[in-house]
């Protein structure tokens, strides 16, 4: 059944799936945002531990979503995986290192006899939530600003910049996107913690943090959106596959996709703001469940803009014709078909994740849950 679909349809489908996984990962960066809030929200050790324990029940889901994002891109668009990871070496290595620090920090932070001590692990978590997200934002920014690579006749990549990917962080657009992600994650993190915790002092600080971080993120968001709507983009001629610069390409893309482009973007932004308003100016705790889907919609809109409507999603500004599109970078028809059958399990996975999430979060987490008489079942 799926095998009868045209190769180009499968390529579109797989860009959708990868975009969805990527969007869910950005939603899950509320964990990273919460990690950076640890150092700025409270000095009370018990309150801090409560925050860590709340985030600690979710960090693996975010981590796993990132790993799946990588795996799905590898399977569906191996030329992107090979070109970007092997080319923009340093940016990816640094991102990965921050996630290594995250992976051990929850478990190790409070454990007795740990030579690194809790403060070191809190710094590790901060690095993951700040530097890690900043670099991820910069890497995603290159979907629009381009990278410095060239492919030979055998599709093997050579990178043409000595910083091997770190140069992405020196573009104002990429940097702004990165900083937006950092502050947005803090906004989401505040809303998640408000939703998940019962702690009077923390609650007030977190509710304020939601709006403060939204305001901090706005200049970067506005710069990114302003640039995106006015910049030249990397357009692909569908007949020849040739890549050329086109004025207002991304604005054209958003307008060409009124629902999944402009629509998702606007609705998503409104939902994020609404989530913050609910959190800060009302007593409701459900802001995260409004801003979270909003975040997913915004990221989907951005990734659709990067990849659909005859656009190179991983453009090379060094050699335009080396740019990657969802058509020239994809796996074969057979592999995409096989992968599509595997992807039929995704709704089932989402269902059990949601079920377990609900079962575990039915009761809010409070200080009594991490008291000493609970033994060692906490971070």
């Amino acid at each position, binding site marked *: 059944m799926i095998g009868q679909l045209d190769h180009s349809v499968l390529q579109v489908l797989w860009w959708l799936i990868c975009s969805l996984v990527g969007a869910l990962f950005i939603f899950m960066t509320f964990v990273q945002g919460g990690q950076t809030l640890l150092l700025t929200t409270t000095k009370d050790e018990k309150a801090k531990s409560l925050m860590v324990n709340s985030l600690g*029940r979710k960090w693996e889901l975010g981590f796993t979503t*990132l790993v799946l994002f990588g795996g799905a891109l590898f399977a569906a668009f191996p030329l992107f995986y090979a070109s970007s*990871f092997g080319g923009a070496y340093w940016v990816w*290595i640094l991102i990965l290192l921050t996630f290594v620090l995250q*992976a051990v920090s929850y478990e190790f932070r409070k454990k007795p006899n740990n030579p690194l001590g809790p403060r070191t692990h809190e710094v590790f978590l901060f690095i993951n939530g700040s530097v890690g997200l900043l670099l991820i934002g910069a890497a995603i920014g290159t979907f629009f600003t381009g990278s410095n690579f060239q492919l030979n006749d055998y599709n093997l990549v050579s990178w043409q910049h000595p910083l091997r990917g770190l140069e992405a962080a020196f573009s104002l657009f990429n940097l702004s996107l990165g900083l937006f992600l950092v502050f947005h994650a803090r906004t989401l993190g505040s809303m998640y913690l408000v939703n998940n915790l019962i702690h009077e002092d923390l609650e007030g600080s977190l509710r304020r943090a939601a709006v403060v971080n939204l305001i901090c993120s706005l200049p970067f968001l506005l710069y990114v959106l302003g640039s995106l709507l006015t910049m030249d983009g990397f357009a692909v001629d569908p007949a020849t596959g040739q890549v050329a610069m086109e004025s207002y390409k991304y604005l054209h893309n958003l307008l060409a996709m009124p629902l999944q482009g402009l629509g998702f973007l606007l609705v998503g932004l409104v939902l994020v703001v609404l989530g913050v308003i609910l959190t800060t100016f009302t007593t409701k705790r459900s802001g995260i469940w409004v801003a979270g889907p909003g975040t997913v919609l915004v990221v989907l809109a951005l990734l659709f803009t990067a990849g659909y409507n005859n656009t190179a999603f991983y453009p090379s500004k060094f050699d335009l014709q080396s740019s990657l599109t969802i058509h020239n970078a994809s796996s074969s028809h057979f*592999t995409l078909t096989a992968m599509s059958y595997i992807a039929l399990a995704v709704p089932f996975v989402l269902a059990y994740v949601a079920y377990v999430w609900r079962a575990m979060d039915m009761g809010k987490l409070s200080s009594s849950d991490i008291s000493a008489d609970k033994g060692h079942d906490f971070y």
Partner: protein
Amino acid sequence: MIESFDLTQVNWARAQFALTAMYHWIFVPLTLGLAFLLAFFETIYVRTGLEHWKTITKFWMRLFAVNFAIGVATGIILEFEFGTNWSNYSWMVGDIFGAPLAAEGIFAFFLEATFFAVMFFGWDRVSKRFHLISTWMVAIGSNLSALWILVANGWMQNPVGMAFNPDTARFEMENFWEILFSPVAISKFTHTTSSSFQVAALFVIGISCWFLLKKRHLAVAKRSIVVASVFGLLASGVVAFTGDEGAYTVAQKQPMKLAAIEGIYAGEEGCALCAMGVLNPNMQPGDDDDPYIFAVKLPYVLSILANRDPNSFVPGINDLVYGNPGQGIVGVTDRMDSGKIALDELARYKIARKVGDDQTAEAALALFRQHEDDLGYGFLQKPEEAVPPVALSFYSFRVMVALGTFFPILFIALLFFTMRNKIESQVWLQRLGVLSLFLGYIATQAGWVVAEVGRQPWAIQGLLPVSVARSNLTTATVQTTFFIFLVLFTVLLIAELRIMLKQISIGPEEN
């Protein structure tokens, strides 16, 4: 295809990948096996309602969590290192190799990540039954994860179900089921997981024996030893069976690896197995000397293991490198010539396609197809490059097999004395139990050395040498990341060991 390559850079990339993989493999086997042991302990608790089984479960779960975190940390590096350090590989076989990695994410990682939170934090938040199911889900999820990555590894050792596409210059998948159910993949999965179960059993036994030596937590220790020994003993049966299957598939699909493992240079009919021995360190491919300084040989055994026939011919390194027409073996020397034709014709095809010369393209493609099976050999500079490090393969294999033979004896002894309630007086056995914790890790690391060193120089057996699979990075870049990873992983390992030792010293929270 590749203009030039820096062998030093390739070796640093290999070292970095080996470093990451070996660190990762300190933690993974324990996760794979201990997850099932937790499930067994908790099942007994739920079925009997006896609180002490809950105490046992929670104690081992605490150690599981410390180990799990660092396994995850090293795992993410490993996944992305395929792209960062082996980008040519990622493109040339990504169409096949990426699918199992994505399947691993969808089917396995989410099971682990989702239910780990319930298993660890859900004791008071969900029902007893739901908690037990969650523990089982973590065990199943972690082992499913092993299935997919080992299928991918099995495919690298025995590439099947694919074809080379000259237009995209990559290998593309043609048969998913052939890849999933390849005998090499099945044998890799079953052997690796069952040996991991042994490691976990030895871990539980080692710590329990330490408690016995210290006269602490005696009941917890004895109960843990019984369950772990039964689990380890059952796993040992599977390890032996799948080890035999593995040897057979290696003989059929990777004869050079078998020759290196056995240190055989001149093949023979009715070939003996070297049970133990010392290699002649001066031996080189092409030499006629005796490859062993000392050897205890079991006549005909290697022929039986390799071909299920005591009189069959088992090729040696010299047969495989230089050819043996009498046995119908085409040597690396000839395959290199054939491979270079394949590479030249592929280049001619690409140029012809570029300028629209269909006739030349067709002719070049036809010739390429005749030689494509030898494509990988065309990249080699000299035939001896096809020989993996013999001594490392030979000795690692013997360490693995010797320890693998010892473990079931240990499990039986422990079971015998524990069931007869005499274990507390057997100090020698308790000490041996503690020592065996480390032996389990040595055995499993040695196994991977055999599997991975033994298949060098190939990233994909016969098709893609590591020198071509690499990323286009400078040696200094890879050296820098190698040392970053070395320092980081070592610091984290030290932290993990200190935390683990403290948790062991605290012991179970018995009422």
